[in-house]
C-alpha cells in the first residue's frame, strides 16, 4: 500500500490521481489514532465504521476530481461542534450523552467538499481553558512531551494534527483556543475574521468572540480548509455576506514591500528568551524575502487579558444558562422541585473552571457592578480594537509570538486560574477586535518543544495573513518535523 501523505493537499491529490483509495487513507488515520490515542487522549468519540462507509462511497465515485478540495481527507472535529448522530460533549459531563440531531454548518460543508469525519477531539469543557486540563474526560498530552499540556482549549485537535493522526482538524477560537494549542503542538492554527465562518452548530461559549477555524500542518491546508467552511449561512445572521476570495491565489511567496508591524515593547516583559529568539529569527526570514519590518505600538494592549476575561465570562454565564436539565443534557436524579433540579443538575454537570467562569460572569453582569465591570470592559474593548486598527493602518500585518512560553507542564497552572489566563496574552487581542490571525511553527526550544509565531491582519484580509505566513513557511521546514512515536521519525 502506498504511504498516505501527511498534508490534506497531498492526501487529496493521491486520492484523485488514483495512487491510493479513500478507504486506505481512512484506515491509516484510524490506525494512527488507535496507536497513540491512549497515550495522548486527543480523541473522544471515534466512529470508524461510519468513516469507512463514507470513504467507500467516495471510492465508488467515478469522478474523483469533481468531489471537492478535501476529497478523502480525514478530519477530526472539536467536540464543541455538533455532528449529527455522533456524540458531542463539549468536554462536559452535562453533555456526556448528547447526540446532536443536526450537524454544524462547517461539518456539512466539510463533508460536501469530500472530507471524511473520523471523530471528535477532546477539549477544555465548553472551550474554557488554555491547557485542555479542564475536560471532563481527562487531559490531552502534548505529542512532543507527554508531561506537558498541548494548550487549549482545542488541545485535542492540535495533538491529533501534530501527531499525524489526521491532516486536518477543526477547532474553535474564543480567546486563542485554536492558535495557542497550534503553537504549543507545532502546527498551523487559523482564527478567521469574526463573521467569516458560520457558528451554527458550534456550542456557544462567548458569542461575540467565538469563531471556528482549522488546524493543519501547512498554511496552504489551512487556506484550503477555511475556503471550504467560510461564507454566509442562512442559519447564522453573523456569518458575513463578504465574498470569499481564493486565498491560495494570494500565496505566491512574494512578500516584497509587504509591511509587517512588530510590537517590540510587548516582547520585553514575561516572554521566554527562547520564544523571543525564535520569533525574532522568524522576522528575519520574512525580511530576507523582501518584507519591510516596522515597529508598531499597540495602544491598550496591556488591557486585553482583563477585558477578555470580563466579557467572555459575562457572555458565558448567559450562554450556559441553557444547561438546566430540561431540553437536553444531564439531569440530576431524584429531585422533587424545579429549582433544586436546576441547581443540582448544574452542580453535578459542570466542572470547576466552568463554575468559576459562570460565577465571575454572573458577578460582572449583576446589579450594581454591570457598569463598573461589564460596560467598562466593553469600552476598553473599543480602545483595544482601535489600537489594533490604527497599527494596521500603518502596516499590512502584525507579527507577534503566539504565546509567551512554550507548552507548560500538566498540573502547573491548573489550580491557579489567573496564571492560566495570562497564557492568552498574545491571542486575546485579535479575538476582541475580530481580526484574522494565524499561528505558524517558528522553531523549537532547546528541550525540543515547538514555538509559534502569529500573523494578524485587517478584518476580512485573510489573504494578507496567509500570504505572509505561507512565504515564511516556504523558507522553513518546522512543520515537516514530526514528534517521535508517530511513525514519522522524530527530531534528530
Amino acid at each position, binding site marked *: 500500500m502506498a504511504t498516505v501523505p501527511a498534508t490534506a493537499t497531498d492526501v487529496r491529490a493521491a486520492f484523485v490521481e488514483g495512487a491510493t483509495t479513500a478507504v486506505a487513507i481512512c484506515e491509516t488515520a484510524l490506525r494512527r489514532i488507535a496507536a497513540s490515542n491512549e497515550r495522548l487522549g486527543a480523541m473522544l468519540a471515534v466512529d470508524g465504521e461510519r468513516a469507512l462507509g463514507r470513504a467507500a462511497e467516495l471510492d465508488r465515485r467515478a469522478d474523483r476530481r469533481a468531489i471537492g478540495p478535501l476529497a478523502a481527507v480525514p478530519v477530526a472535529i472539536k467536540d464543541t461542534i455538533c455532528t449529527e448522530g455522533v456524540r458531542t460533549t463539549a468536554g462536559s459531563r452535562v453533555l456526556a450523552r448528547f447526540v446532536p440531531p443536526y450537524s454544524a454548518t462547517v461539518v456539512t460543508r466539510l463533508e460536501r467538499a469530500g472530507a471524511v469525519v473520523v471523530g471528535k477531539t477532546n477539549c477544555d469543557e465548553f472551550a474554557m481553558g488554555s491547557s485542555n486540563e479542564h475536560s471532563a474526560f481527562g487531559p490531552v498530552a502534548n505529542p512532543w512531551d507527554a508531561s506537558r499540556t498541548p494548550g487549549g482549549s482545542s488541545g485535542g485537535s492540535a495533538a491529533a494534527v501534530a501527531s499525524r493522526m489526521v491532516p486536518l482538524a477543526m477547532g474553535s477560537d474564543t480567546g486563542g483556543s485554536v492558535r495557542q494549542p497550534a503553537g504549543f503542538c507545532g502546527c498551523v492554527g487559523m482564527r478567521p475574521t469574526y463573521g467569516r465562518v458560520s457558528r451554527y452548530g458550534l456550542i456557544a461559549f462567548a458569542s*461575540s468572540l467565538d469563531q471556528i477555524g482549522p488546524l493543519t500542518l501547512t498554511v496552504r491546508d489551512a487556506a484550503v480548509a477555511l475556503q471550504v467552511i467560510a461564507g454566509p449561512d442562512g442559519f447564522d445572521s453573523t456569518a458575513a455576506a463578504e465574498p470569499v476570495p481564493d486565498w491560495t491565489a494570494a500565496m505566491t511567496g512574494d512578500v516584497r514591500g509587504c509591511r509587517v508591524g512588530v510590537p517590540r515593547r510587548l516582547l520585553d516583559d514575561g516572554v521566554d528568551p527562547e520564544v523571543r529568539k525564535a520569533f525574532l529569527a522568524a522576522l528575519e526570514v520574512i525580511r530576507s524575502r523582501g518584507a519591510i519590518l516596522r515597529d508598531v505600538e499597540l495602544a491598550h494592549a496591556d488591557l486585553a487579558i482583563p477585558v477578555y476575561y470580563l466579557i467572555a465570562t459575562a457572555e458565558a454565564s448567559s450562554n450556559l444558562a441553557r444547561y438546566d436539565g430540561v431540553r437536553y443534557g444531564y439531569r440530576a436524579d431524584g429531585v422533587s422541585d424545579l429549582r433544586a433540579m436546576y441547581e443540582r443538575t*448544574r452542580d453535578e454537570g459542570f466542572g470547576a473552571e466552568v463554575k468559576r467562569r459562570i460565577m465571575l460572569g454572573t458577578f460582572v453582569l449583576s446589579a450594581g457592578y454591570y457598569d463598573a465591570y461589564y460596560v467598562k470592559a466593553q469600552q476598553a474593548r473599543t480602545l483595544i480594537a482601535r489600537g489594533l486598527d490604527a497599527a494596521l493602518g500603518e502596516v499590512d500585518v502584525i507579527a507577534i509570538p503566539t504565546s509567551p512560553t512554550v507548552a507548560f507542564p500538566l498540573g502547573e497552572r491548573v489550580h491557579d486560574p489567573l496564571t492560566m489566563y495570562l497564557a492568552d496574552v498574545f491571542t486575546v487581542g485579535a479575538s476582541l477586535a475580530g481580526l484574522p490571525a494565524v499561528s505558524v511553527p517558528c522553531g523549537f526550544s532547546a528541550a525540543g518543544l515547538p514555538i509559534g509565531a502569529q500573523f494578524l491582519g485587517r478584518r476580512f484580509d485573510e489573504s494578507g495573513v496567509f500570504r505572509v505566513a505561507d512565504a515564511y513557511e516556504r523558507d522553513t521546514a518546522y512543520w515537516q518535523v514530526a514528534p517521535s512515536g508517530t511513525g514519522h521519525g522524530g527530531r534528530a
Partner: protein
Amino acid sequence: MPDERGDLDLAHLAALARLRLTPDEEALYLKQLTGILAFVRQLQDVDTAGVPPTAQVLLPALVERPDEVRPSLSASAALCNAPDSIPAPPLVRVPKVLG
C-alpha cells in the same frame, strides 16, 4: 469601581447562577475570584469617557434570509436528548413548579 472588599457575596451569586456550591467550593471561589477582580481592577485607571462600548465587532449589518417556511427538525428529533419527555403531545416533563 466598587467592591474594594467584601462585596463578593458568593451565596448570592451562586443563587443567581443556579449553582449549589459546597462550603469548600465557596471558600475556594471567594479566594480565586477576589484575586481575579483585583487583577481586572486596573481597568478603572483607563479613561473611557465618551468611548462607545463594543458589544460585537461585526459588521455593517447582520445578514438576514427570506422569511420562508422550510423543513426543520421534527418534534421527536428535537426531543431525542431530553432527559424526560413524552412523544404525544411532544412535551418535556419537569418536577412540579408550584406547590
